[in-house]
């Protein structure tokens, strides 16, 4: 098992290189003039900036050499300078990554909890109104355009009923806490500012529900299907014959047996969450990677777009590796072989 993880970790850099290569080719091939991929339109007339960019990216060299320079720059953490913010893309992304993580993790927790609970209920009360309700809920989640759902919920809860705050991470009138982890909820707590913490949390609720909903459906369907299968197995009868209560039978005996597929689907859902986060952040003005990507795409800010894409790919890879490790740990049979 250790072997397997080591092998996967060795393969990682190669796929990373593939991701980088793909990102390079995207700009190198699609753009007629590679200069337009690293220098914004307004600055194309500025000979100093143009010369500096040529030098930095080796734009007058042949393609293979440019590729090497590109990879070299990346290794130094240089993804170019954003046309829009005029700051290094790496700096921008580092500043925005925690906001996205906070949203995605919170959505993952909400989505998993809702998905698992609904899945368990749907399986236990199969073919009843509860089952049908869970099915409709899940279908809706996977079919609704997330940006529209976000707008609709924002309109309902923030404008119409005024239960929850509007877009953003924290009330703009409130002074944000000093950045420690970059997670607004944690930083406000660390600063001991409980009012700000409550405000940050209430800002997190709506986007997390919107984002979590999209994966809750998939998770609940999978939990249901697997539970139906497991509840028919004989060891469930054994557990009941032992005198175990239904809650214990469902959670400790049945659910533990489907942990592996559930963990797998939850980490797969990470892909959907990243995708969904892009749009959710755009709707909720959430200052993370997703809204950065959207702004970049709207203003054709290539260094920023490519930077986000690479970081997104890397995040994907790491999650998949973690999934595999979790998979191995959760399954005693795999662990022992």
């Amino acid at each position: 098992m250790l072997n397997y993880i080591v092998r996967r970790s060795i393969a990682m850099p190669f796929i990373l290189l593939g991701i980088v290569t793909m990102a390079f080719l995207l700009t190198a091939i699609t753009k007629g003039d590679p200069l337009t991929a690293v220098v914004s339109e307004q600055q194309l007339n500025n000979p100093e900036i143009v010369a500096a960019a040529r030098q930095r990216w080796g734009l007058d060299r042949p393609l293979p050499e440019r590729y090497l320079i590109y990879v070299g720059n990346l290794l130094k953490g240089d993804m170019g300078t954003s046309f829009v913010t005029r700051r290094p893309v790496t700096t921008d992304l580092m500043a925005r990554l925690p906001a996205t993580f906070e949203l995605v993790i919170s959505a993952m927790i909400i989505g998993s909890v809702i998905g698992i609970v609904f899945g368990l209920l749907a399986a236990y009360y199969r073919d009843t109104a509860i089952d049908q309700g869970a099915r409709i809920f899940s279908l809706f989640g996977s079919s609704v355009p997330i940006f529209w759902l976000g707008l609709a919920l924002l309109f309902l809860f923030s404008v119409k009923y005024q239960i929850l705050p509007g877009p953003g991470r924290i009330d703009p009138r409130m002074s944000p806490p000093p950045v420690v982890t970059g997670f607004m909820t944690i930083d406000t707590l660390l600063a001991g500012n409980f009012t700000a913490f409550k405000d940050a949390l209430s800002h997190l609720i709506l986007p997390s529900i919107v984002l979590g909903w999209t994966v809750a459906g998939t998770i609940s369907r999978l939990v249901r299907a697997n539970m139906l299968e497991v509840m028919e197995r004989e060891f469930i009868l054994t557990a009941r014959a032992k005198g175990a209560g239904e809650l214990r039978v469902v959670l400790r005996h049945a659910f533990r047996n489907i942990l592996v597929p559930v963990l797998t689907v939850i980490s797969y859902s990470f892909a959907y969450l990243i995708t969904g986060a892009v749009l959710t952040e755009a709707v909720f003005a959430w200052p993370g990677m997703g809204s950065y990507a959207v702004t970049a795409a709207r203003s054709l800010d290539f260094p920023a777009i490519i930077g986000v894409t690479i970081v997104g790919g890397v995040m994907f890879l790491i999650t998949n590796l973690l999934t595999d490790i979790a998979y191995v740990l959760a399954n005693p049979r795999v662990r022992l072989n």
Partner: protein
Amino acid sequence: MSVAETTGPASAAPLLRIRDLKVGFSSHGKMLPAVRGLDVELSKGEVLGIVGESGSGKSLGMLASLGLQARNAVVTGSVVFKGRELIGRPRREMRALRGSEISMIFQDPLSSLNPVMTVGDQIREALVLHNRSMTKAQATARVLELLQLVAIPQPDRRINQYPHEFSGGMRQRVMIAMAIANNPELLVADEPTTALDVTVQAQIMRMLRDLKEKLGLALILITHDLGVVAGHADRVAVIYAGLVVEEAEVRELFANPRHPYTRGLIASIPKLTASKDKLYSIPGAPPMLGALPEGCAFHPRCSFAQDVCRKVAPPTVELGRHRASCHFAETLPPWGEPARAAQSEEPAHG
């Protein structure tokens, strides 16, 4: 063996008395009867064999008695255990009863054990569920003791292993250890040896018998194999299509079967002595759920069947402690087979 002692004078109240137990499944607005009236009794320390083909309702009846029927099943009748009526008892009380006073083991020990829990955890759970105050150390000590009792070598190492690391026979021993963890008074063994190798079957049966003696258990042995019953039961109830068609002490049943179905079953036990004989089997197949023939359910497969059998359900005829549900229970020709109750199932090496 101890047939005579255990069935001595009829004791005051039986440990378990099942009367007219019916289990049905509703399907498309119709009721499909699976168990049509189970009547059996069991005294303390007694071994009752319940024999029937698969689908005869033998397991279903016992599961329903313990409140373990499927959700769409409808159960009526009476099951009295130690003077308490179990049918209609609140679920919480049934849970308290299961695994402490009445335990069960099942056919396939691999699928009956939870694959993602260690063997120790599974036995410990049976203990802790019924003794909330038990500490973890106490429970572990008791688990080790139980594993020793069912002759599992190196219990302190085995306790932390998963079911797939055990052999078939070892798994069934684990199931037994789990079942006897709380010193139950009744153990229901549902085809306990069917999924095991022949040599292991004998070991498991010996173990059940030893434990019965040691712990004073009453045992219900559910099986499709009259041979298993012959060597180990005190009394036998033969079930066909959801009804007890014959019940008698084991020697009496083999010496003097009064139901043609029982005769067919006895005739189809493989014989060690006459190995050249072709194995007998009862012609036809048991009726499908909800497609019961009229009259006696067995008549389409019965060589003695007359017109009356096709029209009228047979009465239960009592012949002392022997009862049979057949129109011709008293008039069937004498049974030619020698009584082989005791000698047929003793394994060559024990």
